[in-house]
């Protein structure tokens, strides 16, 4: 203790040893040491498996069944498989603000899914408007990543506007309400709508419903199929969590006459979890057919499942779609839980038609080719599909003799689609959106039981079918006075 020379020696030796060991290790690898491989290995394996699957031959898409544009997309990926076509000419700018780099919210996988799609469009499919071997225009994805900081969000909103984009694709963003006014007049595509402002904003459209399709869909499922008499809902105590609970959960459960109660959660806070789980158990203890479900609290699904099972929970656990990732599926507590599925189930791709297998494989391959650094998740696939949808609608616009970059062209085209193809999802309609959810096209979903190793059909008569939410969304009671 009388000298620190030894300490210095130890520090130098340990540091040198670590660096030397790391150097040796990285030399042995063919990939750079900095490459971050997906931690989400199960999902990665699942997508790799689907990529490796050998679907049936080409020409199997049916626009009536798979949605308008399915056959065209199949033709494009078939042609690309034989001879990839690179896009040429002036790029069509698509701006993309996205939340990244904040511990409280970071979704790099959404950006990476979009970038993978753009790479596929530009380097293999020939770009927007490619036809008969002639290349079309490339898409330039102008990403503006920002942290949970209003200043950065505002800067991104202005930057996106200044890029003069044909379309703005929003990843997940907690600041869209302050962004929309800046984007007046530009078509906006929401990837995961989480604010009321995202649900019925003029000029905004979403192929995926976010809270709007997930949460009322769960209410309808729990009422009509599961026959729940009591439901506990755990949701985040933050702005999107509260808005989604009030707008898309509480009032639909009330509308459907399901006894329910919301439990606020502070994401990640261990002090809250056990007490809340205990409350949920107590609330549902006298239910004949009770269930617990989540709002925006995906980060804590697994932890709540653990806490409730340890606390003696006897009722059904129903996981929202955003809880569906490898880390949750591998837990013992997830066994026999029911998972919401808004897309085709990639883990069970063999159950689908040859075309669906082919497009899921093509998407998985494109994402793998891109080489994402973040773990591949449902968000990666969703944003990929969103960009492909935009590409397809732009192709339709060009085929109709119009310029998708011209003012007032793309937004109406997106809003008019009917029975339209979306990669990896059942077809969507945007022409009949509910009055309070004018921006949301996605109105179907299903539920599957996780048996610990694979998804199977639930035992409640749903039989793997997709629930149609159109009527329920259209019958939403008026929102409470805002003030």
């Amino acid at each position, binding site marked *: *203790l009388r*000298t620190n020379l030894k300490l210095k020696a130890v520090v130098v030796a340990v540091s040198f040893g670590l660096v030397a060991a*790391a150097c040796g*290790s990285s030399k042995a690898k063919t990939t750079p040491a900095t490459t971050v491989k997906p931690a989400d290995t199960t999902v990665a394996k699942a997508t790799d498996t689907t990529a490796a699957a050998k679907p049936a031959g080409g020409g199997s898409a049916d626009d009536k069944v798979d949605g308008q544009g399915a056959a065209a997309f199949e033709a494009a990926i078939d042609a690309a498989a034989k001879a990839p076509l690179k896009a040429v000419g002036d790029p069509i700018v698509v701006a993309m603000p996205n939340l990244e780099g904040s511990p*409280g919210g970071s979704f790099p996988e959404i950006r990476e899914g979009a970038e993978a799609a753009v790479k596929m469009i530009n380097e293999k499919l020939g770009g927007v408007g490619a036809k008969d071997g002639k290349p079309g225009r490339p898409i330039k994805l102008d990403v503006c990543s920002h942290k949970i900081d209003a200043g950065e969000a505002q800067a991104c909103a202005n930057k996106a506007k200044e890029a003069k984009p044909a379309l703005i694709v929003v990843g997940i963003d907690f600041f869209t309400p302050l962004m929309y006014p800046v984007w007046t007049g530009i078509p906006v595509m929401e990837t995961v709508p989480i604010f009321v402002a995202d649900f019925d904003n003029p000029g905004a459209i979403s192929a995926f419903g976010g809270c709007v399709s997930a949460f009322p869909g769960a209410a309808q499922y729990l009422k009509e199929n599961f026959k729940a008499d009591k439901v506990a809902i755990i949701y985040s105590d933050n702005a999107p969590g509260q808005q989604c609970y009030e707008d898309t959960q509480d009032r639909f459960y009330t509308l459907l006459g399901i006894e329910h109660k919301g439990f606020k959660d502070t994401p990640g806070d*261990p002090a*809250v979890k056990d007490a809340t789980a205990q409350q949920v158990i107590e609330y549902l203890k006298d239910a004949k057919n009770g269930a617990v479900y989540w709002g925006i609290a995906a980060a*804590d699904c697994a932890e709540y499942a653990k806490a409730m099972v340890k606390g003696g929970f006897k009722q059904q656990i129903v996981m929202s779609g955003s809880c569906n990732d490898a*880390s949750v599926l591998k837990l013992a507590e997830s066994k026999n839980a029911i998972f919401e599925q808004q897309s085709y189930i990639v883990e069970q791709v063999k159950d689908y038609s040859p075309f669906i297998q082919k497009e899921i494989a093509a998407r998985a391959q494109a994402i793998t080719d891109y080489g994402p650094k973040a773990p591949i998740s449902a968000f990666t696939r969703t944003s990929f599909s969103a960009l492909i949808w935009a590409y397809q609608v732009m192709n339709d616009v060009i085929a109709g003799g119009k310029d998708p970059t011209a003012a007032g062209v793309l937004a109406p085209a997106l809003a008019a689609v009917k029975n339209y193809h979306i990669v990896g999802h059942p077809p969507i309609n945007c022409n009949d959106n509910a009055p309070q959810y004018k921006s949301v096209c996605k109105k179907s979903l299903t539920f599957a039981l996780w048996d610990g190793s694979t998804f199977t059909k639930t035992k409640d008569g749903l039989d793997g079918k997709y629930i149609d939410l159109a009527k329920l969304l259209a019958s939403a009671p008026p929102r409470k006075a805002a*003030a």
Partner: protein
Amino acid sequence: MSQFVLALLAGLGVAGAIYAILGAGIVTVFRGSGVINFAHGAIALYTAYTWSELKGKGDLRLPWFDILPTKKLNIPVKIHLMHAPANAAVAVVISLLMAAFLGLMCHVLVFRPLRNSSTVGKVVGSVGVLIYLQAVIELNFGSSVRSEKGFLAQGSFKNFLGLGGSIGKDRVMVAIAAMICGALLAALFRFTRFGLITKATAGNEKGSVLLGFSPSFIAGLNWIVASVTAGFAGLLFVGINGLAPSNAALFVVPALTAALIGNLDSVGIATVGGLAIGSTVSGVTYLAKQSWWPSWAPEGGVRSVLPLLFLAGVLFLRGDKLPIRGTLAAARQARVPVQTRPFLAPAVVLVFGTLGLSIFTGSWMVALTTTIVAACLMLSMVVLVGFLGQISLAQLSLAGVAAYSLLRLTSNGKRVSQLDTVVVKGPGLPHLVAIVLAIVITVVIGLIIALPALRIRGIQLAVVTITAVLTLQEFLFKNPSIVGAGAKANSPVPRPTIFGIDFGVANKKTFLTDRWQFSALALGSLVLLLVMVTNLRRSPTGRRFLAVRTNERAAAAAGIDVARTKLLGFGISAAIAGVAGILFAYKFSSIQFENFELLIGLAFLAFAFLGSITTPSGAVLAGFLVPAGIWSFRLSEWFGKNVTKYVAAAGAIGLIVTAIANPEGIVPAVSQAFKPLGDKLFGRGRKASGGGGAALATRTLGEVSSVVATTS
């Protein structure tokens, strides 16, 4: 009742245990090196991630990142140690070694060089380490939440203690582990030679040196011990809660509270305090979900604020109006130079700001406005922290008070724009009246926050001001009965019109938020505040602030009313923060509570320190450095998204390096470097300046004697 008891017991097992171990670790570090380690939770989390990575892939991730753009030449960041899945016990040992390494690095690279720095310098260094580790965790392990099985016993005790409910076996094990850990640490400091030497060094460092001990070595060992206990807490946490980078900050407040309950001195009391906090929070969570719980008391607010309010009360009662005789003098504080050319900085800002307004449009204008508004907020920190020496983390929250007050006072129950989904009720006052009232409200709140400062000082005050941050956030910003419908969403702020001039930030034709009229309003406010703060430093009031900062007893002996001076400083800084908050609200046209969170406030304090927290021009420079400010915007334009992911980690390194190399901030260092040039340009020869150091000393009021001479 049995369910409530069960909730209290459950709180012991998860959160309480983690807080207890971390709190004991914070006490250990403080006793060893005099540092409050805001990054203690981050060390725990890095250890937990290390275990997860070793277990899952057999890889050891080193706590740094590879920023080299080349593919052939890389900074090694990963060692493949073993085949996956790794043996759990081996992974535990290696993870704890990583924790020890992190602690050692914190000491050697950051806090040993900062050992003679001011309290604010150490706080900033600590915040830098927190930001760095959080960023590296995200870079090395990703931002997705990881859920691990852990290595503790599964299953649960049915009908636990006859209370009719179940409790997981792992929860019980964790609680017992925390108690054993606390007891072992207490024994280490009570019965071993190492503990005695640590106590002696903490009590009298010079005496310890004279006895032949190395305070630095002792501090290093304490850092290792504390970090290993933090790592232990992280490992216990693995199987119980998901791993996410945000968890690093989540533990900071309760663990600090536990440490303060132990008076930053007793490991045993800190352990008990941590367990009590976890239990209380769990119990309150249970009660708050009962149907009888009053709606005006938000669950989150009561849960997070109750322990802190209790602590603030204890510290207040325990504290003294003046530091007792014999209290060790604080470390040397940063100089507060007199502005010999008081109107130079405001004039430069006015000229270049006006130039910017006439040149910039679009994103550049947005960045300029962000810089100006941030600089206004930084000025409030210059007054409070720089001049008065009161470390408050609540300045951003005070800006939030002004923003929400303005929102409520100017709203009239009508939709601000067709896009709004929220309508806020209010009296619809004219903007000028609302601005004045909002500033008054902010000053009143600022004075309430000042009350603990009358008896609590230094780092303890900094922690207690966290109470104010959480109270304002949970009871005000998130409370619908006070702020209206905007508590659950973005609240639209009515467009400002003052004397018939439209100062709205959004351009009605292009919709960009780049109107020069608003930027001019912000620039005018900044220039006025700069003049005011610069002259405050030169005035008798400013000299009284410095006297209180330097030595409260000496200041009181010189006839200064210390309490009044403190209240005045808090009031002035609150008013300045209020101006910043009003500009903030108008700039974004809508506000939400996330804008005023604790970590953002901490980051603002760090930026203010980086610029120079003792000079008004330092505040302006700090405004350039904030996220979305001019400098940040310029960087993103230069380097694009491939580099921006490293900004947080690199910025944290910059913060630490600046705290070590330029403890007074960038501005004094730069002005010293350019002093010869300035002297030539402005005709002040070296003779006139008195020959460097001596003249500087007479122009600064770091010495009590100068203060007494001036004020008497």
